[in-house]
């Protein structure tokens, strides 16, 4: 009898533990990106500095935007890694999360779980709000933040065509990163 009870408890723990795959899609309004391994995921969490959370090397205000930020999920303590904000523009999630450093929030977005590639608890953040707030905030501030920080970026078009650091790298090493001479050869081959 004792063994049966313990076995049942063991099974319950195994199913509810951090390693178990859980469904966080209830009430999610996340938009699909048609990604192979995506699942809608809405959950409560605390916004943390990942370097601090993993290694104990902590910085004031989660690193002020220098460091990647994570979501410590309230239900099970799992550290979720938001790789992406909601903009289809090569943009991460730190800018969106920094205002909530240390705060309890609710988030909505897409979870990626692809064991073949090692993608576990990888997240695309679409909207966020502090616990208790009614209004959601869209996770799409990155490009406005970039524009504020790069008022002199010349030209038109999306940020990644005008970013001074990106342009400097391409000017030095080419689009393929193999040096300017090789770059010109490859482009001539690809675009005759």
């Amino acid at each position, binding site marked *: 009898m*004792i*063994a049966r009870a*313990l*076995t049942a408890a*063991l099974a319950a*723990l195994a199913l509810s*533990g*951090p*390693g178990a795959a859980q469904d966080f899609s209830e009430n999610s309004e996340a938009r699909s990106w048609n*990604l*192979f*391994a995506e699942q809608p995921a809405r959950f409560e969490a605390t916004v943390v500095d*990942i*370097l601090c*959370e*993993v*290694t*104990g*090397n902590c910085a004031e205000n989660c*690193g002020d935007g*220098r*460091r*990647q*930020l994570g979501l410590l999920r309230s239900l099970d*303590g799992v*550290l*979720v*890694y938001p*790789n*992406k904000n909601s903009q289809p*523009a*090569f*943009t*991460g*999630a*730190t*800018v969106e999360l920094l205002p909530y450093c240390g705060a309890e929030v609710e988030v909505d977005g897409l979870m*990626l779980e*692809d064991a073949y*590639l*090692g*993608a*576990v*608890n*990888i997240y*695309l953040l679409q909207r966020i709000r502090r616990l208790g707030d009614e209004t959601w905030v869209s996770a799409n501030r990155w490009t406005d933040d970039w524009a504020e920080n790069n008022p002199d970026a010349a030209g038109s078009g999306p940020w*990644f065509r005008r*970013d001074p*650091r*990106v342009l400097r*790298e*391409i000017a030095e090493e080419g*689009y*393929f*990163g*193999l040096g300017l001479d090789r770059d010109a050869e*490859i*482009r001539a081959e*690809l*675009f005759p």
Partner: protein
Amino acid sequence: MRHNRVFAAFLALSSPLILAAPAFAEGQRVQLRGEIIDTWCYFSGVMGGPDAVVGSAHHTCALWCSAGGIPVGLLAEDGTVYMVLQIDDSDESAGGDTQMRLASHVVSVDGMHYERDGLNYLVVSEVVQDDDIQVLSHDDFGVVPPFAVPEDAP
């Protein structure tokens, strides 16, 4: 005997919940070699399969993503992805210059490896060797994504 084994397993699974104390993962010193990749394109498949989003074909996109604050990883020779949290003294893992300049490069590093909730994390103490771009993926994939290199680029 069977009771003991079940009870031991019960304790092993339940102790983290009983203690409920956030513990830092224990790091292990490692020497690794691999490519500095853009983890979102690699994990999501948004730009194609894993072979298409490494190396020269994907280099401009890797620059964009790194500058855009998407986490970089080290794709080790055995296929394991390590999420890079720090390189040398730079903790600028969200769009910093140090990681951007290493985009698509194959590097040998010395550092500390941590595991947490299924992901591997890496704090690089030293980039021992930087072999620049080694994966000439443009031979197979051209440009990824196709618009990354303007056809009329000077």
